[in-house]
Each structure stands twice: as C-alpha cells, then as structure tokens.
C-alpha cells in the first residue's frame, strides 16, 4: 500500500485521516474518521448527544491528541502542534469570554499575542467589532451584554486572528429558538464575508442544513454519511441517518422485482413502486423511507396499484403553516403525514376518526439496505 500522502488537491484545506480517540483505554469517542473539507466551505458535524462531535472538534483545535490518525491543514501535518501553535481558532459552546476583560480587550487578546503594532491592532479590533455590530459596546464587560451580544463577541474574538480554520461548537446552543433562526443567517453572512473555512458542531439538524454546505452525520464515533444537505435528506444511506435528519416513515419489506430503472417492495401495509434501482437481489429485506411531506391525503381511493394505503386519523397537530396527521394503518403502523395548509381552515377539513387514503409518487421514497 502506498504511504499516506498529505493532500495535494489545492481546494482541500483540512484533511483528517483515520483519526481515532480512545479515552481511558475503553471509551471510543471517535472511531477511525476520515474527512476532507474544502476551502471556504462550512462543514457541519451532526449527531446525537455523546456521539463524539466535540471530541473530534477538540482534536482539530489541539485540546485533545488523537490516539491514532493524522490531521493535515493546508497540506501540513498539525497533529502534534499545541493549540497556541495552530492557525485554528475556536468559538466555544458557552463562549468562554474572559470576564475580567472588556469586550474590546477580549477581541484584542489573540492579536496581542501576535505582537501587532498598536495602530494596526486597534484598527483590526475596531473592524471586527463593527463586523459584528458591537462598535458601541467595546468598553463593556461580557456580563453586561445579552446572550446574543456575547455570542457575537465570541465570534469576533475567534475571527480576529484571521484563522485558516474556524471551529464552532454549538455556536447558537445558548440562544432561544427565535433568536437562533435570525442569528443563523447573520452568522453565515459574517463567515462568508470573511471567507473563512468552518467546521461546525451542532445537534440541531435543521441548523446544520441551513448553515452548512456539507454535513457529516455521526453516531458512536464514526461517520454514517457525508454529503450535501439535500443528499443527506433526500438520499439517506441508512435507517439511522434517515431518522436522525428530519421526520420519516420507514416501511419494512422484501424486494419483489429488481429492474435497473425501478424496483417494487412488498410490505405488509402496501406495495411500493420505487423509481430508482438498487444494488440488491429479489427477496432481500429492505426499508422504504418516506418523508411525511411527500405524502398526499384524499378521501377517494387512488386509482393505481401501488404506493397508497388506507387508515384512520388518530392525531392532528396544527402548526399554522402546515398540519401533521398521524394515520393508523391496518397493520398498526403509525403513518406521519404533513400537509401544507394551502387554504384557511374550514369545517370539512379532516378530523379525528376520519378514514383516509394516503398516496405518494414513485419518486418520493428511498430504499434503505442498512
């Protein structure tokens, strides 16, 4: 086997090769992870709590040393560099602003370590503060700011040194839902303005989808799938990914016909006619993943042989813009269906106990072999 060579592709900024981290000899927090991140992109690590996201990020920052594997930044091996030697800056989960320093001095902290001239230092700190719209707050101490303002100071501080790589650990974790949504866009705007490459950790899959250009879904220390947000959402490669990213209905069944352009899957609930082929054999067990928003409801029985089933409305959750129905099928399976509310609520809308037909198109589903 050829020796592992640091990447030669000029577009790749960060390259992780077979990195593992074992704590106390037994806890495998990160398990043989490989990854490359291109220049200027925002890369998100998502996964449930304790899956090793923070550990991986901390290895990039240099706070943890990998048990095995190498990390390359701009082609240079940085695995053994200390945190203060790396051109990498991190925005901490709960900001970790220095409470004894003013906002201005917090932002200046990293630049002072570089021994910048006074005038240039002041210029860059002021530029950073105006970027995050906190020019007027320079003299304040961190505890005199709101949560959202503290978050922006933390961002300014981590960007001030113009790092090659910016690491964000749950950057919006401490904000409430409403503020999170506006801040997500703000954050992406600033990051794009600066043009810095980012690795972002979050357990919120929606946040990952809106902010990142690529997503890695992690579970128990390894990557389940890496791809663009729509790839991961529309073409999940396993049941775990499908159910972690968004809502999903999964039918279990057996492959009936396996043609290059379509397959049919026989399930207890119905037969699926899926408009894409898989690499499998007839008779094999598969899951068919179907997103709730890709299903339609109607009172009449659909006029087709596949891709529909009948059930009873047992649950209605009204969200304003859309409504989620739970339909109990004959087999006992609970089918989640999401309908956009195209008209205002009327008296003859679906209600509890109604019998309905759910149907969907041949391109609505994904067949999962894992």
């Amino acid at each position, binding site marked *: 086997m050829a020796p592992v060579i640091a990447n030669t592709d000029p577009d790749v900024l960060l390259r992780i090769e077979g990195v593992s981290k074992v704590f106390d000899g037994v806890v495998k927090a990160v398990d043989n992870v490989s990854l490359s991140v291109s220049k200027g992109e925002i890369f998100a690590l998502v996964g449930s709590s304790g899956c090793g996201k923070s550990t991986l990020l901390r290895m990039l*920052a*240099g*706070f943890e040393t990998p048990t095995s594997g190498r990390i390359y930044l701009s082609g240079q091996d940085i695995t053994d560099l*200390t*945190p*203060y030697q790396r051109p*990498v*800056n*991190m925005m*901490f989960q*709960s900001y*970790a*602003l*220095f*409470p*004894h320093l003013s906002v201005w001095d917090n932002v200046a*902290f*990293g630049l002072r*370590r*570089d021994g910048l001239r006074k005038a240039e230092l002041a210029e860059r700190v002021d530029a950073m503060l105006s970027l995050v719209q906190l020019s007027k707050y320079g003299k304040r*101490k*961190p*505890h*005199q700011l709101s949560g959202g303002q503290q978050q922006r100071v933390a961002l300014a*501080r*981590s960007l001030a*040194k113009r790092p090659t790589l910016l690491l964000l650990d749950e950057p919006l974790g401490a904000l409430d839902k409403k503020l999170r949504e506006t801040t997500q866009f703000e954050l992406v705007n600033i990051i794009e303005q600066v043009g810095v490459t980012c690795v972002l950790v979050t357990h919120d899959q929606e946040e990952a989808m809106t902010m990142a250009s690529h997503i890695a879904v992690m579970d128990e220390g390894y990557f389940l799938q890496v791809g663009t947000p729509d790839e991961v959402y529309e073409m999940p490669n396993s049941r775990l990914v499908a159910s972690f990213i968004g809502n999903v209905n999964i039918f279990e069944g057996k492959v009936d016909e396996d043609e290059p352009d379509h397959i049919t899957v026989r399930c207890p609930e119905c037969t699926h006619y899926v408009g894409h082929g898989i690499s499998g054999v007839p008779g094999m067990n598969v899951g068919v993943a179907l997103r709730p928003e890709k299903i339609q409801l109607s009172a009449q029985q659909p006029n087709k042989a596949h891709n529909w089933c009948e059930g009873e409305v047992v649950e209605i959750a009204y969200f304003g813009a859309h409504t989620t129905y739970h339909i109990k099928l004959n087999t006992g399976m609970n089918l989640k269906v999401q309908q956009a509310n195209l008209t205002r609520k009327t008296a003859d809308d679906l209600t509890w106990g109604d019998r309905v037909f759910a149907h969907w198109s041949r391109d609505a589903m994904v067949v999962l072999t894992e």
Partner: protein
Amino acid sequence: MMFKSILPRIHGLFTVRNLVIAVPMVWLFALAAAPLLLVLDISLAHMNITSVSSIWHWADDELTLKFNFGNYLYLGDDSLYFKTYLSSLTFAAVTTLYCLVLGYPFAYFIARAPAHLRSVLLMLVMLPFWTSFLLRIYAWKALLSDNGVVNQGLAELGLVSSPLHMMHTSFSLTIGMVYAYLPFMVLPLYATLVKLDGRMLEAAADLGASPFKTFWLVTVPLTKRGIIAGSLLVFIPAFGEYVIPELLGGPRTLMIARVLWDEFFSNNDWPMASAVTIVMILLILVPMALFNRYNDETKLGDKS
C-alpha cells in the same frame, strides 16, 4: 404633619429584615466596636500611679472631655516606635510574599488534582492545626538552634565546621511566620482556583497564549480575589504577631506586639499601650479599605 411622617418610619425600623440584621449588629458592637472605643478612650487618658484617669469630667452640671494627646505625640518623638512599626510591616509583608509564592503552586496543585485526592490534600494542609500552635513553634527551636537538628545534619555531612547561627535572627522569625501562616494563604487561593473555568485556559491557548502567558493573563487575574483574601488573612495577624517573635525572634527583630506587651506588663502604662494599639489598627485599616474598594468594584462582575 411631622408626627404623621415619623410614625411609619419608626414602625419601619421593626421589620423582620431589620430585626434579623440586629442580632449580628449587636454582637459586632459588643465584641468589636465597644472594646475598640474603650481602647481609644484609654489612649487619650493619663496614667496615674496605679490607675487610668478618666477623660470624662462631670462638675457643676457640666460635662467636659479632656483629651491627652501626649501618648500619640510621644509615639512620634521616640524613633523606636517608628522603627518598630516599619519593621513589623516589613516582616508582615515579607511573610505574606513568601506565603503567596509558596502557597500559589501549592493551591494550584491541589485544585488540579483528581477530585478524590483533593480532600485528602486539603486535610494535609490543615493537619498542623491539630497540634498546639506553641508546640509547633517550639519545634522550630529544636530544628534551628546551634546544636539543633539542622546544624547536626550539616556538620555530619561536613558542610559546616562551626554551627550556623539561625535562631533568634530574622531568618528564624521569617521561617516560623511563613510556616504558621501558610495554610491561611493556601485555603482561599484553593477556593478560587478550584472554581476557575478550564475553558478560559483553553480559550487563551486557542488564541495563541503560551502556558506562561495564559497563567499571567488569565489565571492570575481570575484568582485575584483569592490572592487578596489570602494576603489579608496572612498580613493582618502577622503584623500583630507576638508569640512567634517572642520564641523565634531576637533582639534585632523588632515587632510591635512585643512593644505592646512591654508597655502593658513591664511599664504598666495602659494609655501608652492603647495609643500604640490605635495606630496599629489604623495601619491595618489602610489595606483593608483598599480591599473593600476592590470588592465593590468587582461585585458587578460576579453576578454573571
């Protein structure tokens, strides 16, 4: 009109809150303020042969107060007092400095130790309190005297030909004071160091600060309160220390508490002794006031 506005105010004095505060207030007054006022009173009086004169005179329905500032003026006249105050302040400051320099790494190490070891280590710091203070100071005599353990050891190793003279010097006094007061420095330092947020140190390293810079720019400022509290806890009692200078000090190690003792028990001059005390307290109040001001300034910073 007047009456109406005063009544609710008097009533307002007896709220539960005020009554609760009243208990420690009365306590403080009885045990700290009252004796202090008494000392102040005596310091302004004359010493008759066996009794202290009163500054209060009641005659012809008139109360007159007669202050005798002679004691205070004498403090300024005799340069021995000035020298002694200065020497006491110096010993206290040197003791505080050594305690800080020794105690900080001590406390740092304990605070960074695994959680289950910390209580054991803290116990070891407090262990000396289990034996008599006097006994422990006496033990230093056995160690440092001309034919003590240290000199015997040095002689046996052939490092000295005649014993080093260590007892009753400023060396033995400083060792004794640092030894006795070290725990008072370590405990408050430990209390702030153990609360120090590890992410602050990571953030500093992440921003390019070397471990030394991180210590100096982050750890030290964030443990300032512990440093100040520990320094006061050492400095104030060290300034007025009597026992250690008496046992380990010599004729040249002037300490104000020994002067105080002499005034009281040898010269039997209570007003003079009281004047010495009042000046001592004033000297201590200065660092206390500075600390309080710092405390007020940083109070805001703590509520975050």
